[in-house]
């Protein structure tokens, strides 16, 4: 089943410098439970695609639908994760995690219990009453992921979520996020400029061209390993990496 359908999307926006053709006839979809990554040259409009999906901006033409429903206004169907964790420093981890439920007025007993179960399951059980500045970078990022999962969005949107972390933490958090997303059977769309990361984490990698961005190619990554870290060590990994790198240049 298709969770996301991105159909013939073009986007032109105006600024003082003139008209910019950001996207041109972009078509792709994300299936339920699938992890898709988008890579492309910097400034090609990767983040714009996420903004379109979460309905923060509207396309010039084309339709976007999530679970067969056309996207019109931000409504909690998508869960956004950004470069840094964006936890609210003045709220405890528990309250941070409840933020989406709070905003969407979905604080039912069932949903609150689900959020707590996520915190318990993913190692934040003893940190519910802590404030963000008492946690390590990896834990903070995990709390941010749980905050996103707590309101059960149909699709997770990850905008370079690991780029604020140092390389070693990054590898570990990447594994971490991947395993949580897979075990919650969530669908995710990741935007990154890091080809290795895209190949390691995604089931499919979409390669975008320079502006106006169109889809150059889509790779199905077939590496039968359990975690991104193990995939990086696989012999097939560098093959995909080289191919995509060549395509981007």
């Amino acid at each position, binding site marked *: 089943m298709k969770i996301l359908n991105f159909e013939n999307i073009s986007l032109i926006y105006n600024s003082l410098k003139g008209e910019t053709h950001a996207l041109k006839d972009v078509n792709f979809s994300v299936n339920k439970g699938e992890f898709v990554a988008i890579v492309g040259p910097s400034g090609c409009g990767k983040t714009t695609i996420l903004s379109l999906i979460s309905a*923060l901006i509207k396309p010039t033409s084309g339709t976007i639908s999530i679970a067969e429903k056309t996207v019109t206004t*931000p409504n909690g169907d998508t869960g956004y994760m950004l470069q840094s964790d*964006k936890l*609210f420093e*003045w709220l405890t981890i528990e309250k941070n995690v409840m933020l989406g439920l709070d*905003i969407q007025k979905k604080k039912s007993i069932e949903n609150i219990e689900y959020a707590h179960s996520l915190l318990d399951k993913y*190692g934040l059980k003893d940190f519910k009453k802590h404030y963000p500045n008492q946690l*390590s970078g990896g834990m903070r990022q995990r709390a941010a992921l749980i905050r996103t999962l707590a309101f059960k969005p149909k699709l997770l949107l990850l905008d370079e979520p690991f780029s604020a972390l140092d390389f070693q933490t990054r590898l*570990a958090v990447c594994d971490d996020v991947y395993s949580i997303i897979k075990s919650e059977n969530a669908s995710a769309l990741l935007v990154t400029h890091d080809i290795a990361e895209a190949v390691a984490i995604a089931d499919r990698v979409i390669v975008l061209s320079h502006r106006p961005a169109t889809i150059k190619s889509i790779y199905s990554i077939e590496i039968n390993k359990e975690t991104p870290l193990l995939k990086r060590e696989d012999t097939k990994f560098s093959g995909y990496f080289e191919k995509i790198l060549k395509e981007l240049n």
Partner: protein
Amino acid sequence: MKKFIQRKKIAPLVSSSQKKYLQQLKRNKIQIIIWQISIFASFILLWEIAVRLRWIDGFLFSSPTRVFNMARRLLDDRIFFHMGVTLLECILGFLISTVLGILIAIGLWWSQKARKILEPYLIVLNALPKVALGPMIIVWVGIGMQAIILMTILICVIVAIISILNGFLNIDEGKVLLLKSMGATKFQILFRLILPGSLPNILSALKVNIGLAWVGTIMGEYLASRAGLGYLILYGGQVFRMDLVVTSIVILCVLAALMYLGVAILEKKLIKNYK
């Protein structure tokens, strides 16, 4: 996964060099306090000696003992009345201008258009020495407490608006984006993010505002009052009773410091979780 589950803060290992370091810190702190007290004490002492030895005229410059005697003499209902008047004016002016400042800043945050339209007005009003409005204030509201409170508000409110609004606008765009993507309304963004997120900034604006509120109050009292510490200072100066002037200033110092301390303590308590 497990290895990333660790506390950032580890209980300090108390080695001998650590102990030494902590002791050094403590010693420095004590030294600083000793210096602070001795500067104050020697100033008082020097002042007293200078008057006693007639280096300066005690009539014009007053002296610590004169101030002390004056304070003791004043320590009746009269001085408390004057203190009360000034304190009330200052606190009312401070509170009203803070509330107004926050409300107007919210309005300007809400509407970018209003912000752009009103920007030049804010800049000019900020640059204008509000004391110049004194005669107009007297004509409009008459002499007395209302004039002084109005003066205080005028002096405080513009700075409050500007600094609080800047805090609002400096809130992390990413956090705003996050809330928007969750489907938050503008109202929710205001109350969930902008206001709580600006708390440190609002409190530091309050600290500046406290100082300005005192300026406004005393200025107001110079211009249009029949009571208060500013009135006592002005009156004392006119009848050449410098003891009265200095005593009032000392009381003013203590009150202003206490109020500032109050806000500083409030700040420490409220923002301990902010980075």
